[in-house]
């Protein structure tokens, strides 16, 4: 008989939207326009109509530049933010409309690792306390020695020396802290880990250590990762699939190998060309015109049209939908659809 759980995608986002209100109070909404007082609410459109699904055991990388909504997507999935519209399904069950209380059980399955390991560990808790807390919370039946054993086992598996247990976070370097933060996420045996720029604050030699650790945890525990990053060389190494966001919308979604071999969306191409390579002897990138527009007033049509060399009339008025390509990737671009990109 087929395992029921494997029938479901582990995660599905359906037309996910997130808008942040800039003008919260009544008084803030009052604006002077042409000598008249009007009410006007401004909103940041952080995530716009994002749909995607994830299979068990994959590592989906969400990439894009600052303000593209990648962290917001992570926080929506983790339930730290409420979507303005759309649905989030985890393992076949809708989770975006659940109460805090109902989410508790899910937190055991889904853990998050943040960018700054200096901020994610409580400075007044020893490492032992920090690691025990989630175990005790999620396994109320476990006795004191049970908790201790569990913590020690996890510490060993991620290379955290058990003799560190009595020490405080400030006594450790950034790389060690991130290791501890990962240990903390793994103590409750999650199946899904959301990592938001987990190595961006670390030095190159330490980045390699932490990435190796995350890859090991993936193999040993069969973890599914949602990995948020701006660093494309890490994506190529770590991700099984990649989704490229621009101004909160999906530009391209593809297998990692496909994306790096034949990027299709003009933005993806520009992004890939901008990564400095070891063999370059001068900058060689596709230059984009202008700058990222503000997500307060989203451009009409394709969000990228103001910077795209291939934009035409249609791009300015009609927002492209992600379309399946022959090689399986999804690309939201009229120019790709009409085959008018010179390759």
């Amino acid at each position, binding site marked *: 008989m087929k395992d029921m759980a494997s029938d479901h995608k582990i995660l599905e986002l359906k037309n996910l939207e997130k808008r942040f209100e800039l003008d919260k109070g009544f008084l803030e909404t009052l604006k002077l326009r042409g000598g008249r007082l009007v009410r006007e609410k401004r909103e940041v459109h952080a995530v716009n109509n994002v749909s995607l699904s994830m299979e068990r055991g994959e590592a989906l990388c969400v990439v894009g*530049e600052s303000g593209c909504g990648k962290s917001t997507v992570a926080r929506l999935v983790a339930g730290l933010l409420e979507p303005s519209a759309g649905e989030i399904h985890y393992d076949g069950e809708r989770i975006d409309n659940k109460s805090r209380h109902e989410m508790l059980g899910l937190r055991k399955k889904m853990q998050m690792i943040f960018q700054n390991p200096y901020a994610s560990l409580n400075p007044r808790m020893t490492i032992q306390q920090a690691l025990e807390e989630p175990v005790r919370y999620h396994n109320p039946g476990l006795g004191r020695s049970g908790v201790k054993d569990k913590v020690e086992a996890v510490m060993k598996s991620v290379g955290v020396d058990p003799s560190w247990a009595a020490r405080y976070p400030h006594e450790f370097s950034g790389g060690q802290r991130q290791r501890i933060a990962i240990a903390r996420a793994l103590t409750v045996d999650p199946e899904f880990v959301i990592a938001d720029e987990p190595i961006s604050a670390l030095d190159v030699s330490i980045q*390699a250590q932490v990435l190796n650790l995350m890859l090991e945890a993936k193999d040993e525990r069969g973890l599914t990762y949602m990995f948020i990053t701006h660093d494309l060389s*890490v994506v*190529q190494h770590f991700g099984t699939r990649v989704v490229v966001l621009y101004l909160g919308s999906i530009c391209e979604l593809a297998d990692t190998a496909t994306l790096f071999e034949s990027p299709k969306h003009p933005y993806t191409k520009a992004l890939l060309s*901008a990564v400095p390579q*070891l063999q370059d002897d001068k*900058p060689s990138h596709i230059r*984009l015109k202008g700058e990222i527009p503000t997500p307060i007033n989203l451009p009409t049509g394709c969000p990228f049209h103001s910077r795209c060399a291939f934009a035409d009339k249609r791009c300015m008025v009609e927002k492209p939908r992600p379309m399946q390509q022959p090689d399986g990737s999804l690309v939201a671009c009229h120019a790709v659809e009409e085959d008018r990109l010179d390759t």
Partner: protein
Amino acid sequence: MSLLSVRDLSVKFAMRDQTVTALNHISFDLAKGERLGIVGESGAGKSITGFALMNLLSRPGFIDSGSIHFEGEDIVQMSEAQMRTIRGNRMAMIFQDPMVTLNPVLTIGQQMVETLQAHRKLSKAEAEQIAIVKLREVYIPSPEERLGQYPHELSGGMRQRIIIAIALLLDPELIIADEPTTALDVTIQADIMELLLELCQSNKVGLILITHDLGVVSQMTERTLVMYAGRIIEAGRTREIINDPQHPYTQGLINALPQQTLPGQRLKQIPGNMPGLDAVPVGCPFAPRCQFAVDHCRTTLPELVRYGDVEVACHEVNRLHETRTEDQSA
């Protein structure tokens, strides 16, 4: 004569109970118009080098010994008044965070005019004309309008362009850029780097680029210094160092990059961490993390010596090179 000549420069920090050494006898030269990269990880002493060159160290940091000759004059011996005629004028610095460098309560125009008038006798109108020319050089659209704007009204990339324009205002001979694009997105980083390279080449300005990104160093510089725990451990032509690094740390740094490993494979990590300034081991500072270290490495400090086309501070460089050559031919 070289533009800049640094000899045996040591910088120390006087802490409450001890004095730690942040820069340990570093020496290097920079020719006119040459572009030099300084790479290393946090705490290696790259930024301290930049600050020392500008004579900008403030307590508890101080230059303990050594000399920095800029066009024949020793900066270390200069009074603050003398230094002020050089800093910003013949030598300029670009920092990582443009929001911290720009004064938030002054307009772009005020800041540019102020810089110009500090070094040259110019009327406000004349200074503004120069500012507009420089803003145009860094591809700022409608520069006349920007002069009246405040830093917060501009994007990060735009601000960093303005910082570059300010650095170039007085046609310096040397620009020291300390992680100038680390706070920016890759597409913007690429634009800024290209701009910086173009300006340095066309104006024959020397560049010291401090960064942790070997890809950037490769694109931008002719020569590279690799620093570790306050020392230069390898120096030479950039291409040479990236294609055939001699020091085990440089090799480790390059090999640790994800591009150097097949996707999904274990990355070649360097074990351990860089020692803190108060706990630098005797002998080679890299020895505790080095897989090739022998007894000698743990007791005696290796000097930076010429090896082939580069300079390397490693006792075992000969042996390692031979083993590598054998491995390759085998």
